[in-house]
């Protein structure tokens, strides 16, 4: 690991940590309906929306009505994305004349974007019209993230309130998340990205004359079915355009991750410079990290928020350095081929297959860890071509349940489920009724939290097992051997935890994968929100218990260690066997002489 590479990761962590308090504080004000400096501009818009919706911003609901609102609202989002894709051929803003998307692929993409997964079974620049990118995909980038943040805020209210049935109003929480948090940050980021070269235009694609025209050999079948090679002259290059910057900004900030172009943020028009790369990677973790502070402020003890933040960071940093070191070490299978993989001032070295020169190893490895720690799933390098251990870490970060920062809102509510399980286990150890943030944790909460923890594990393992057992699953695999299994495991890990990144070699745009992964994404997103909201309702109804000498403090290093232990234990015990069949075997094969 080069010193400059280590510094890039260290500076990232420092800048992120410095932003946690100011943004977290701001978001707490927004969610509690306090005045902020944006209120004079956005207040009238906010009130206008409530008036047309017929909502009283002051009226709150029970957890059940909150859950119905979340589900209904996201179902609408799903239908909108589905229908717009099917109809895009007849809709405006389609300069490339793309036809409507095939139904199973459209179903997959609609679930994917409504569930904040943003798995992509399609190539953006060759499939989606500008209309679809803006009015279907960009919109869901905002609204699915805002839905996650709203559910988190409802859960926090459950901890903060006592003896009430009310946990908030979904439409108010969701609207405020969108208007005051996601929209201004996206506007700033989008403009910064345009300044770096990210395209933002409604023109049709351009065609450039190549400096050196060339020929390619293509295989064509003649009338009798025999294959013949044909020379084809290539003298031009398509230069794709579109309203990309506006979508990329929210794709990063809302932990969405669905790229405008096929290769996501590896595309030079999606991520042109080291500066755009730093801003984009920072944007992935910004909101999930700052929400920890928001949580602390809303439960009136910021130490609680910092404790959760510390647990996340302590899990994240060693894993990020792990990817960096595995990728920098390069591929021993290439050592005898006359190549130079050692890093120097003159070149990045390491495993450069699937990586871009402007990012080299450090910026690519940091991104891989960040995007899978958060449930973002955008990529700036191709994870399928990572070394076995470099690919294992992103997979495992997702398998931890997307709670190490995780999705906007969903990451922290997932982590708070782990906190509930952690105090429960601690309570068992010392023989006391577990408490968290002044609330007694009883059988109901532990049951619901266990559901949230275990459901994604079941989805991932059952899905992978199914895919490995049937030809519809295995025939999509691109790489031979253990790596092929890793491709399937990665796909269900990504969908089953709403991440959206992929080992891209897997041909996932097939009926089996479109449907199976669509179902996985749907279950892991919405079936988890219901138990989380149930806990919010149950906690809000409870009275506060007095803090005594026997209360386990939950802001101390001891509790942080306990929380980390539970997260890692569940993740390791559940997934080690599957990982052993994929990346671990491949690693041993790669370093072995055989």
């Amino acid at each position, binding site marked *: 690991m080069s010193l*400059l590479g280590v510094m890039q990761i260290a500076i990232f962590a420092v800048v992120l940590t410095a932003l946690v308090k100011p943004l977290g504080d701001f978001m707490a004000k927004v969610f509690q309906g306090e005045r902020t400096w944006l209120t004079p501009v956005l207040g009238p*818009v906010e009130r206008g*929306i409530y008036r047309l919706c017929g*909502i009283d911003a002051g009226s709150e609901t029970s957890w059940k009505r909150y859950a119905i*609102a979340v589900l209904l*609202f996201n179902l*609408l989002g799903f239908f*909108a994305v589905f229908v717009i894709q099917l109809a895009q051929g007849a809709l405006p803003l389609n300069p490339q004349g793309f036809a409507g998307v095939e139904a199973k692929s459209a179903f997959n993409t609609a679930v994917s974007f409504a569930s904040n997964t943003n798995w992509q079974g399609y190539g953006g*620049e*060759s499939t989606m019209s500008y209309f679809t990118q*803006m*009015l279907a995909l960009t*919109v869901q980038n*905002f609204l699915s993230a805002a839905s996650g943040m709203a559910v988190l805020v409802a859960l926090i209210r459950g901890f903060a309130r006592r003896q009430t049935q009310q946990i908030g109003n979904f*439409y108010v929480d969701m609207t405020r998340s*969108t208007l005051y948090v996601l929209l201004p940050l996206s*506007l700033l980021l989008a403009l910064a990205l*345009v300044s770096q070269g990210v*395209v*933002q235009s409604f023109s049709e*694609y351009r065609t450039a*004359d190549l*400096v*050196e025209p060339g020929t*390619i050999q293509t295989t064509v079948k003649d009338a009798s079915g025999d294959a013949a090679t044909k020379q084809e002259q*290539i003298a031009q*290059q398509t*230069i*794709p*355009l579109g309203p990309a910057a*506006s979508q990329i900004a929210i794709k990063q900030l809302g932990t969405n991750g669905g790229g405008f172009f096929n*290769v996501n943020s*590896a595309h030079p028009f999606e991520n*042109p410079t080291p500066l755009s*790369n730093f801003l984009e990677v920072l944007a992935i973790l910004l909101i999930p990290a700052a929400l920890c502070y928001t949580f602390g402020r809303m439960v009136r003890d910021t130490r609680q928020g910092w404790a959760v933040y510390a647990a996340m960071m302590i899990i994240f940093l060693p894993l990020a350095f792990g990817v960096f070191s595995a990728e920098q070490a390069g591929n021993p299978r290439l050592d005898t*081929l006359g*190549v*130079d993989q050692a890093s120097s001032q*003159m*070149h990045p*070295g390491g*495993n*450069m*297959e*699937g*990586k*871009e*020169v*402007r*990012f080299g190893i450090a*910026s690519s490895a940091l991104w891989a860890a960040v995007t899978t720690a958060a449930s973002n799933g955008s990529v700036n*390098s191709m994870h399928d*071509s990572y070394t*076995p251990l470099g690919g294992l870490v992103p997979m495992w970060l997702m398998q931890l349940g997307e709670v190490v920062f995780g999705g906007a809102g969903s990451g922290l509510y997932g982590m708070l489920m782990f906190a509930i399980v952690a105090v429960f286990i601690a309570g068992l150890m010392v023989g006391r009724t577990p408490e968290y943030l002044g609330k007694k944790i009883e059988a109901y909460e532990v049951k619901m939290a266990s559901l949230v923890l275990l459901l994604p594990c079941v989805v991932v393992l059952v899905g992978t097992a199914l895919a490995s057992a049937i030809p519809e699953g295995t025939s999509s695999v*691109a*790489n031979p051997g253990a790596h092929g299994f*890793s491709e399937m495991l990665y796909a269900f890990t990504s969908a089953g935890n709403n991440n959206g990144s992929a080992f*891209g*070699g897997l041909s996932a745009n097939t009926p089996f994968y479109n449907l199976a992964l669509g179902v996985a994404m749907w279950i892991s997103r919405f079936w988890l929100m219901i138990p989380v909201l149930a806990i919010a309702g149950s906690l809000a109804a409870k009275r506060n218990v007095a803090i005594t000498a026997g209360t386990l403090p939950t802001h101390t290093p001891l509790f942080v260690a306990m929380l980390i232990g539970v997260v890692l234990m569940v993740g390791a015990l559940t997934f080690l066997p599957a990982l052993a069949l994929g990346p671990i075997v*491949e690693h041993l094969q790669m370093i072995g002489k055989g």
Partner: protein
Amino acid sequence: MSELRPALVSFLLLTIVTGVVYPLVVTGIGQAVFPSAANGSLIHDGDALIGSRLIGQPFSDPRYFFGRPSATAPQPYNGAASSGSNQGPTNPALAQAIKDRVAALRALDPANQAPVPIDLVTASGSGLDPHISPAAAEYQVARVARVRNRPESEIRALVKQATEGRTLGIFGEPRVNVLLLNLALDGKSAG
């Protein structure tokens, strides 16, 4: 039905705000303040559009510097369908491809038996990578100078012009823009 109205109306209104107003505002400001960047950082030669400074082009003539191998289909550097190879590290096809690329480079410059910088023989993530490392450029200097019958020092000076350092000395990697370098070799500027 009381549940349906807020869901529908808020969805429609927020679709207008985030799906129409927001992209239009970004487009308006972007086109006004950063017109070249917002439109693809295009390079013209007279009236002809000859590329983008951010999108690499395929080069195979030894008088030009070569960029990264590109895995896009059907032709390399296909701007209409970005793609990496997605070959795994133990896939025999990956080792074979790299072996063939090393052999092809050495065949064009038999005197140069130095190890080939890895970025010059591995496919980029996008298939459109406009850059190679300074080491990969230096590896090709002797060949380009010989084929063009120009002194190496002259070629090196052009490489230096097309080289960008790390941002703030820390972020990213030093890199050489292959298209701009090859245009400079032909005596064209990227106007």
